């Protein structure tokens, strides 16, 4: 797996061996199929982007290519020879270098030490030859056009520079494949440009680069080729310049209209404009994330929040729930003001939030299903701080039965359940609080089809009973089928509002594509 040192100028259209090729990759997690027969080809001397919405399989594909995951079927070829990685370090040794958003270097060591970590030039007695180390490192960074003092401590430098040092390290390891996973998401524009110029130099040296970013505009600036994933399948692959923004997003999100009826939402358009406004959020702003967002939901209404990754969907519901620091805004529930920035105040006012990240922000793994359900209503199931087992069991059993949560007993640990059942436990946690406003952030992500349909039907039912629902989903079809109206967000602002019969897939897609560009 080592001796194909085909460095030199890029010759993209030659019949050279692919830098990296994957064929027929399949991967599933606890019954959910996340990669379906995925093929991926990276030619040397090109920058190739992989795009797709949340849950499309992007990160699973990358992790399969770099040895973090092992796929069930399929093969991976590196420079023409088949490889099998059981561990990320094997992929690294074979010449696949990964640059993550979170830099995985050693912050307390110098730039030079980081670049040559583990491969330091040695002097006599086997000691590190610091002078040679610094000299070589200086050459490398100069070569790449990075302006930095190689003896400086890495952690003291900006994140952008750190990313570039990670790239420089990739260069010196003579990587033939460099994977850049969301490297720009926390960088400023100026830093992004330098990073891009470094990436282009690498490409011109014949390295194949996989570039991932949710800032779509960057793709045309940097990338030569594109592969689009949707629902774990490759829906398009080809040169970048052949696609415009609209067709890219359509391919990413869109589904054929003929596929209608896949969701379990019923088509009862409420749109009773007479129902009382339950949730009213005005002028929500958070520096750099939200700008003056207004959301208003009537009783029995489902308002969808649409937008690409990073558009401010999750931030909006978090701001309403008090889980995100806001600089301005008024929130009222049924006319009563709710203090901003306080989760307990939001809960008391009858707002509940099902968070997008089930593992990091939802479940408490060491606690039982029972304790996880009552976490939001502790005062209500206790007398002077002493838990009332009778009330708890009654409530917990009712919800386990009502939502069809599959458990051996309510005292089973939540971490032992499948994703779908964990999600139901969390929904039960919030429904116990008897909310009048339910904010659902990606309620069906990462759960199996059966559970998905049950959750969708439940959301419908809750709205029918008069709850005000805000629904976030990356699946346009789920949003269209579920929502009575849709707010389209872009760069933290509401760019378009779709109501009544405007709520259809093609309208939503064009709103996502054109929104804010008028």
């Amino acid at each position, binding site marked *: 797996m080592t001796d194909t040192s085909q460095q030199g100028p890029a010759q993209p259209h030659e019949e050279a061996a692919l830098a990296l090729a994957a064929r027929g990759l399949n991967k599933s997690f606890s019954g959910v199929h996340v990669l379906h027969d995925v093929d991926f080809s990276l030619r040397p001397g090109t920058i190739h982007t992989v795009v797709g919405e949340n849950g499309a399989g992007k990160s699973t594909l990358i992790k399969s290519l770099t040895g973090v995951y092992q796929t069930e079927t399929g093969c991976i070829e590196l420079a023409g020879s088949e490889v099998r990685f059981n561990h990320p370090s094997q992929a690294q040794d074979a010449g696949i270098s990964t640059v993550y958003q979170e830099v995985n270097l050693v912050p307390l060591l110098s730039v030079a030490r980081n670049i040559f970590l583990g491969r330091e030039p040695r002097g006599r007695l086997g000691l590190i030859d610091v002078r040679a180390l610094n000299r070589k490192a200086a050459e490398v960074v100069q070569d790449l056009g990075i302006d930095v003092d190689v003896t400086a401590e890495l952690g003291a430098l900006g994140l952008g520079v750190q990313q570039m040092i990670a790239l420089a390290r990739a260069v010196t390891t003579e990587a033939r494949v460099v994977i850049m996973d969301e490297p720009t998401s926390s960088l400023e524009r100026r830093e992004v440009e330098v990073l891009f110029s470094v990436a282009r130099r690498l490409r011109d040296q014949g390295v194949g680069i996989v570039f991932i970013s949710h800032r779509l505009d960057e793709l045309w600036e940097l990338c030569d080729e594109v592969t689009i994933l949707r629902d774990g399948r490759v829906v398009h692959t080809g040169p970048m310049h052949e696609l415009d923004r609209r067709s890219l997003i359509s391919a990413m999100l869109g589904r054929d209209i003929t596929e209608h009826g896949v969701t379990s939402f019923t088509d009862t358009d409420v749109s009773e404009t007479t129902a009382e406004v339950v949730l009213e959020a005005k002028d929500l702003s958070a520096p750099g994330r939200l700008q003056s967002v207004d959301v208003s939901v009537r009783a029995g209404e489902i308002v969808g929040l649409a937008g690409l990754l990073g558009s401010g969907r999750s931030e909006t519901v978090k701001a309403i729930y008090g889980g995100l620091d806001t600089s301005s805004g008024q929130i009222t529930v049924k006319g009563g003001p709710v203090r901003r920035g306080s989760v307990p105040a939001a809960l008391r006012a009858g707002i509940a939030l099902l968070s997008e990240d089930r593992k990091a922000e939802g479940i408490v793994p*060491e606690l039982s299903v029972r304790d996880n359900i009552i976490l939001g209503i502790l005062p209500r199931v206790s007398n002077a701080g002493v838990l009332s087992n009778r009330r708890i069991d009654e409530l917990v059993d009712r919800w386990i039965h009502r939502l069809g949560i599959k458990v051996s007993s309510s005292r089973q640990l939540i971490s032992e359940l499948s994703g779908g059942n964990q999600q139901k436990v969390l929904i039960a946690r919030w429904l116990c609080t008897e909310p009048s406003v339910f904010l659902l952030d990606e309620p069906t992500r990462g759960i199996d089809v059966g559970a998905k349909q049950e959750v969708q039907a439940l959301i419908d039912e809750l709205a029918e009973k008069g709850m005000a629902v805000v629904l976030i989903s990356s699946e346009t079809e789920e949003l269209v089928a579920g929502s009575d109206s849709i707010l389209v967000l872009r760069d933290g602002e509401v760019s378009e509002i779709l109501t009544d019969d405007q709520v259809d897939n093609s309208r939503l897609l064009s709103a996502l594509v054109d929104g804010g560009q008028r």
Partner: protein
Amino acid sequence: MKASPTTASVPVKRSMSVRAWIANYGVYVALALLVVINAIITPHFLTVANLRLQLIQTAPVLIVALGMAMVIGTKGIDLSVGSVMALSAAIMPLYIGYGTVPAILVGIAAGGLSGLMIGALVSYFGIQPIVATLAVLIGGRGLANVIGGEIKNLSDPGLAVLGSGSLLGIPYSVLSAVILVLVAAFLMRRTTFGVMVEAIGGNKKAAELAGIRIKSVLVSVYVLSGLLAAFAGVLVAARSSASDPRTLGLLMELSAIAAVVIGGTSLAGGKVRILGTVGGALLMQLIVSTLVSHNIPDSVSQMVQAIVIVVAVALQVGRRKA
């Protein structure tokens, strides 16, 4: 280990669950074993006087360990407990003129105050628990020295009763430890406070989004730990009828952490095991006394304790991987 490839996965799985079982209940088995061994090899082990002595010596560590277990349950640690013991024992004699009970209460209040300060540093100023409590570990003993000076004899009759008196044959210190164990177990298992402590240790972000007031729970936990440590300090001073701020409670933080960890509470937080902590404290005490009664030097018993701690933690690591 000679299993054929096809059946290899089965024994591996079973050994994991055995491991988990040992991590959960091993402390009780070890304790029972040690009692049996002692009954056979140590003369006068099964006498009332000896068992009584063992329990009296365990009581302070156990009381401190109860608070420690709660702190560790929130993913924190409390290194201040030994110095807090010294502090309360140093303050108490100053108020003994007002009577035994007021003096004890002032001593205990000092511990609560120290816990309040640590809790505020941890939850409102975001200082890591290990740093905040290390500061009190160092500064607290300094303060105790300033207040208490050198060894003070405590010849208060009330304290003497607390130190060596007993009710229905049970020493007061043991009785109070038993009551505190029951209270702590009740607090952890049957109250909202227990659920909140474990939720914070298990997933702080989720607990916050569920509306739990993280800061006040954390402050309460450190206050409880401070109160318990201060009470343990009072007990030790009462038993020895003396307060020596330089040595009282020295290294107690380590014994308490050891008892908690050996009892199966994970340092990663999220679970508090009160009964296990009792087992851990008793086990450590019994190991030391066994070795001492067979004239094995103290240095050896320290090494044995170290091995027990490492084994307990290693078992926990195995449990998390499984």
